[in-house]
């Protein structure tokens, strides 16, 4: 929705003439070939490039370097859990590997970094900005049906979500690795193994906006194993087994057609759960960990969450990294999760106030 005041305010923000000339000159100079600016992976470029060559020759998968992991996690690097590629932690399709590189969870908030690498070429890197990753919602294996899902396999107890795409952190041209960040708020359920599905579609920009709106979004439209579903535009699919990720060069809207392409889940079952503290306010429970706070209660529970530390300070919940919150739930329940901008040790939290009511911890 355009707004006149906004248009007036931003209309004078223009690229300078000097910048235009620089860009045109740069295009002439590199002829479309040269790199203009290297990514921040550059410091480890030589070593990683050598390692990649080794890996390509030997078939060994290269995990993200410790320094890269730390950089991607920022202030959370000290409490995230690193994982090694291979075995159950890796799914492979058509020469493209996907694996959990590192993860962090407190039982409610889960953040997973998934690495995806092409072992046979540069299908990801050459179209990095056309990559759309989806299917990223984590499903606790026995509660998948409670999520809004596109497909749900009752035999496996898993499904794929339409509504929670991951953030593409970047593409490391030195190792040929695409890094994705998946986040989920687990609707109050904790424990048990979880799985992450990764769907990669390339060449994913169609002229039609947001085809995702055609997906069935209600729980009752969950499609069982083996059932066929035909969408309004005539495209469709047969729900087969479970699906991890697929690589396709078709348009985003045709992902229905290749979703059966390969099976193989990436497991996150070994991720350690951080300790939680539980408090209550009214009809709601509050779960606190070092990485965030989750409010679970009746939908009537609302209001701003404020945090007071033992030193009297009141940090903002989060602006920037992990700043999202999500409302959701079923049966008149509300789940509101706010993740912190940086780790806050639970023992340093003096109190919570939710909608003006103080939270006491047991």
């Amino acid at each position, binding site marked *: *929705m*355009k*707004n*006149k*005041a*906004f*248009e*007036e*305010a*931003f209309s*004078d*923000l*223009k*690229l*300078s003439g000097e*910048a*235009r000339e*620089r*860009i*045109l000159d*740069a*295009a*002439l100079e*590199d002829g*479309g*070939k040269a790199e*203009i*600016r290297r*990514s*921040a*992976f550059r410091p480890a470029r030589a070593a990683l490039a050598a390692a990649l060559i080794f890996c390509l020759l030997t078939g060994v998968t290269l995990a993200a370097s410790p320094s890269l992991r730390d*950089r*991607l996690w*920022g202030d959370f690097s000290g409490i995230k859990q690193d994982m090694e590629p291979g075995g159950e932690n890796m799914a492979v399709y058509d020469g493209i590997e996907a694996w959990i590189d590192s993860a962090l969870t407190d039982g409610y908030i889960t953040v997973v970094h998934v690495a995806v690498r092409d072992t046979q070429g540069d299908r990801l890197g050459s179209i*990095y*900005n*056309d990559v759309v*990753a989806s299917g990223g919602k984590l499903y606790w294996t026995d509660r998948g049906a409670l999520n809004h899902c596109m497909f749900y396999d009752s035999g496996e107890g898993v499904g794929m979500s339409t*509504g*929670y*795409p*991951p*953030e*593409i*952190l*970047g593409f490391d041209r030195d190792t040929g690795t695409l890094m994705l960040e998946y986040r989920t708020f687990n609707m109050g359920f904790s424990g048990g193994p979880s799985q992450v599905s990764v769907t990669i579609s390339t060449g994913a*920009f*169609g*002229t039609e*906006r*947001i085809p*995702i*709106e055609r997906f069935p979004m209600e729980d009752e439209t969950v499609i069982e194993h083996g059932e066929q579903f035909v969408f309004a535009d005539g495209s469709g699919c047969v729900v087969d087994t479970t699906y991890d990720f697929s690589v396709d060069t078709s348009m985003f809207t045709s992902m229905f057609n290749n979703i059966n392409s390969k099976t193989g889940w990436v497991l996150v079952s070994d991720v350690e759960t951080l300790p939680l503290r539980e408090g209550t306010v009214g009809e709601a429970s509050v779960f606190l960990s070092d990485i965030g706070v989750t409010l679970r209660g009746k939908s009537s529970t609302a209001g701003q969450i404020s945090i007071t530390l033992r030193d009297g300070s009141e940090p903002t919940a989060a*602006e*920037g990294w992990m*700043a*999202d*919150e*999500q*409302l959701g739930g079923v049966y008149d329940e509300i789940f509101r999760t706010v993740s912190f901008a940086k780790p806050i040790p639970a023992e340093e939290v003096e109190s919570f106030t939710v909608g003006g009511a103080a939270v006491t911890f047991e």
Partner: protein
Amino acid sequence: MTHREFAVAVETYGDMVFRVAFSSLGRREDAEDVTQEVLLKLWRADKSFASEEHTRFWLIRVTVNECRRAARWYRRNVPVEEVPERADAPESRELLDTVMGLPEKLRVAAYLFYYEGYSTREIARLVSVPEATVRSRLSRAREKLRSILKEEENL
């Protein structure tokens, strides 16, 4: 793409890419760097787009990715230091200052919604977050802008 066609593209889309980058990064110098990076990607990609809207969508998406990478890789968190002077339009200047004072994610969402005219679903796809998150960001931005922004379009 010939160099002449590229020059036309720079003329057509340069300001848009720059504004998106500026709304994200808050500094002219950084925004110009990202603009150069994005437009050179267009030059190198030599893509064929189905429509102008397709081109704009691709460019904004690439710009968002580049800004995100720049911010994340370099961990730069710098304040807004430069906003063009508009002596003749103090209200516009006030709005721009206020928008640029918002957290990065809020101001990008506000810019794409109120200036570029994208829907919340489209913004969700552009910035790779759930639509509910976009709505939340717009709501928070709206609260902070309400005293300045004319409610002419049913905010």
